[in-house]
């Protein structure tokens, strides 16, 4: 029984979309606009309940293009602004849009603290491994050795793996998708919205101008199926064009096997448990890198825990239940007072 009957069109604003032709951001925008009608039905959110908050960067122009409330903040501060929005009005569905520079360079602190607090916002991390808007400097996710405007002889820094950092900051929800996989992205958006707490979605996004094809060795159509694995809770960890490859346990680590070879059967293949609180396996999954492993897409971690905004609300209600002070006059007259006659 659809209540709102929104379509993607309802979430398109009248603003001209200004990303470069071919930029991965277009696909993500469209995936989100496709997902929001579903989110509305599943969670009973009217359109005006959505707020999109961003920092600064190409990706951070996103809120202008979504026909609801939006806040285009300052560089790196999206998580803090989004946190304020959510705590101020917990009924809002808050979506944070942020690039790899915005959320992991200048915004790294707000990022890890939002995740730690488990505030109920959905963070979309557009990871193009470059600063797009400022025209091509390396970011904290740029691969070691990359030549960029500010690293003419190659970078000398180990990049973050966003999923690993999220888990290190006690993250309860982490998913990964790629810009071109609009359907998968939409599906993940709905899952992120449903999760209570901070949902981090890393989007491997292509910047055609300054970092073209940085993800191509896993995203290119011809071998994508062989190099990514889409994880879904409760399903076997299989991948490959013929679904003939799988992940099995190997001591304390994971191993890729071909089903039917070397004695491995489908039964040996791990079943994905996104709900497991212990981060051990999730950590291995987020860290899988090509060529040793397929890169994991889908909802990798999805663990229930108390959220900051719920805790705040509960505490206020609890205190108010026993409150002796109920207005400012009470407050001013509370405690030690005396009369001058």
């Amino acid at each position: 029984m659809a209540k709102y009957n929104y379509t993607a069109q309802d979430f398109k604003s009248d603003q001209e979309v200004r990303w470069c032709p071919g930029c991965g951001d277009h696909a993500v925008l469209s995936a989100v606009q496709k997902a929001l009608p579903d989110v509305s039905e599943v969670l009973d959110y009217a359109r005006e309940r959505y707020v999109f908050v961003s920092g600064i960067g190409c990706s951070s122009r996103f809120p202008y293009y979504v026909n609801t409330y939006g806040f285009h903040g300052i560089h790196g501060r999206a998580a803090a602004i989004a946190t304020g929005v959510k705590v101020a009005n917990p009924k809002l569905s808050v979506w944070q849009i942020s690039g790899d520079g915005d959320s992991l360079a200048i915004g790294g602190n707000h990022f890890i603290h939002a995740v730690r607090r488990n505030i109920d916002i959905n963070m979309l991390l557009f990871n193009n491994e470059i600063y797009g808007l400022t025209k091509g400097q390396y970011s904290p996710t740029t691969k070691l050795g990359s030549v960029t405007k500010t690293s003419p002889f190659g970078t000398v820094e180990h990049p973050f793996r966003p999923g690993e950092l999220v888990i290190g900051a006690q993250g309860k929800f982490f998913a990964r998708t790629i810009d071109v996989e609009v359907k998968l992205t939409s599906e993940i958006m709905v899952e992120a919205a449903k999760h209570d707490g901070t949902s981090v979605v890393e989007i491997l996004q292509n910047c055609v101008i300054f970092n073209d094809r940085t993800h191509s060795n896993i995203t290119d159509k011809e071998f994508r199926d062989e190099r990514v694995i889409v994880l879904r809770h409760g399903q076997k960890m299989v991948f490959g064009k013929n679904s003939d490859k799988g992940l099995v346990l190997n001591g304390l680590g994971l191993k890729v096997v071909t089903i039917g070879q070397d004695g491995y059967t489908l039964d040996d293949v791990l079943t994905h448990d996104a709900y497991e609180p212990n981060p051990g396996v999730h950590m291995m999954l987020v860290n899988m890198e090509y060529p040793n492993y397929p890169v994991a897409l889908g909802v990798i971690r999805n663990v229930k825990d108390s959220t900051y905004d719920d805790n705040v609300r509960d505490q206020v209600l609890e205190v108010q239940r026993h409150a002796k002070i109920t207005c400012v006059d009470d407050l001013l007259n509370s405690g030690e007072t005396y009369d001058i006659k």
Partner: protein
Amino acid sequence: MDKQKAVLELDEVVIRFSGDSGDGMQLTGTLFSDASALFGNGVSTFPDYPSEIRAPQGTIGGVSGFQVHIGNKKVNTPGDYCDVLVAMNPAALRANFKWVKAGGTIVADSDTFNEKGLQRAGFKTDDPITELKLEDYKVVYAPITSLTKESLKDTDLDNKSIVRSKNMFALGMVYFMFDRPLNFTEHYFEVKFKSKPRVIDANKKVLKDGYNYASNIQAIANTYKVPAATSIPKGKYRNVNGNTATAWGFIAASEKANLPLFCGSYPITPATEILVELAKRKDLGVKTLQAEDEIAGICTSIGAAYAGNFAVTSTSGPGLSLKSEAIGLAVMTELPLVIVDVQRGGPSTGLPTKTEQSDLMQALWGRNGECPLVVISANTPSNCFDAAFMASKIALEHMTPVILLTDGFIANGTEPWLIPSMSQYPAIKAPVVPEGTTNYMTYARNEKLARGWAFPGTKGLEHRVGGLEKDFLKGTVSHDPINHEKMVDIRAAKVAKVAEYLPEQEVFGAQEGELLVVGWGGTYGHLLTAVQEMRAEGKDVSLCHISYINPLPRNIVDVFKRFKKIVVCELNLGQLANHLRMEHQQFNYLQFNKYQGLPFTIIELKDKFNQILGGK
């Protein structure tokens, strides 16, 4: 020493309690001042503590002080110099003797004036009195520690607790000296230690024994009586410090505006207590978010303001620096926000526990671009309530960030406060856009030039804001040159227009004449006292204490032009004076500046004013 004993009546007296950080001097002073307030005196207090939590015992670095000024009428400052100094150890004497009036009384715990104690405090001889040239002072050496032990030897308190009670013995002595009843303090023990009757009894006993000891010995020459004030308005009072009053002012504004209060903040001396006070008020629905840093503090508040809460953020100078960029965002998005800066000694980490007024220029200019906002200040501890309320009202009604400047002196200082009723305060009406409004233009303005505030969640008012330049009406991003010029102008005009809604500047004393003293912020009590005293002496001096710094009151030029000379007095190098030079270049502004991390003294102010008057 004079051995006669009598009860002398005084108009006012200043007492300074000083001892090790662990000696409980803050509590002792507070109890004395509370008792005096309850008794009906005018009271003003100021704590003076080190930036270490507990520096090594007995060292100068660890000395903590608390000064109380009581009078038979309203007193406006904690006093320049004290009549009585209580020194719990040699370090306290050494750190504070210069604050004792010539010939004043010093009560010292003789048990601590042993070789080790003297040496720790840096004395070179075993005769600190001679060493400090205090021969003309009345020094009362009392074995306070041993008498306290003696007093409590029959209780079952452990030794540590017993020794810790010595401050109450000293307090008892002071109560005798100033002819104070003990019952207020006894009542305090009863409430504080409700479930521990033995602790109540012990404290009462020490207090009483101290009182009796003082009455028995011959060393205390006189007892003094400072009669209750008669000129003080009747009514219900409480003591309040500036930080608490600030916090409560915000809560009051939130009630009057009928909007939930949100405070995103990060602890920093001497502003932390505002956050602490707000965190307590979950009963009134206040939401505090202790952020990961000052930037997150203000950004969460900006988010909350966007979402429709009344948002504030509290900090001190270094934190205001960190908030600069985000303040610009609040200016551009034209959201209501109060930023309170409890100023301390700078630059950089500077003197974190000392007072100063050196953030005024930062408040006015510390942001990129042409980025105007409202700057107002608070004058006294209790005035922080009204100042916070007004800052909030301006922010909410004019849709602008407001910086409220207080300082360490009034933030920590206390004074009695005639408790107001919220019915005396005006309503606050933010330009909230009602649901159902059609064709909402995000940057369309009302007569105050304030834009309409639409809350997320409201159907039909969906809109986007941000830090890029805004279209004059629609609020969409605009790179148009002429639009930018218009927006720079209108942001300035909106702030300037606030003056039309503010009270006119008042002058204390004659409305025209020879010398106009101009001040702002926490120097009020000192400037007022100096001007009052000089006027009583027949000098032609008036006071213009400015609360609204940007925009300045609309009649300020009228005020200035009625005086032959203007002297701007500040605890900095002349920041208000410079602001006035920019705004009203036509006047000549003399300056009196001090930047020692300390308040003015009345004496130095009067000297300066007399010199200006004389030098005409």
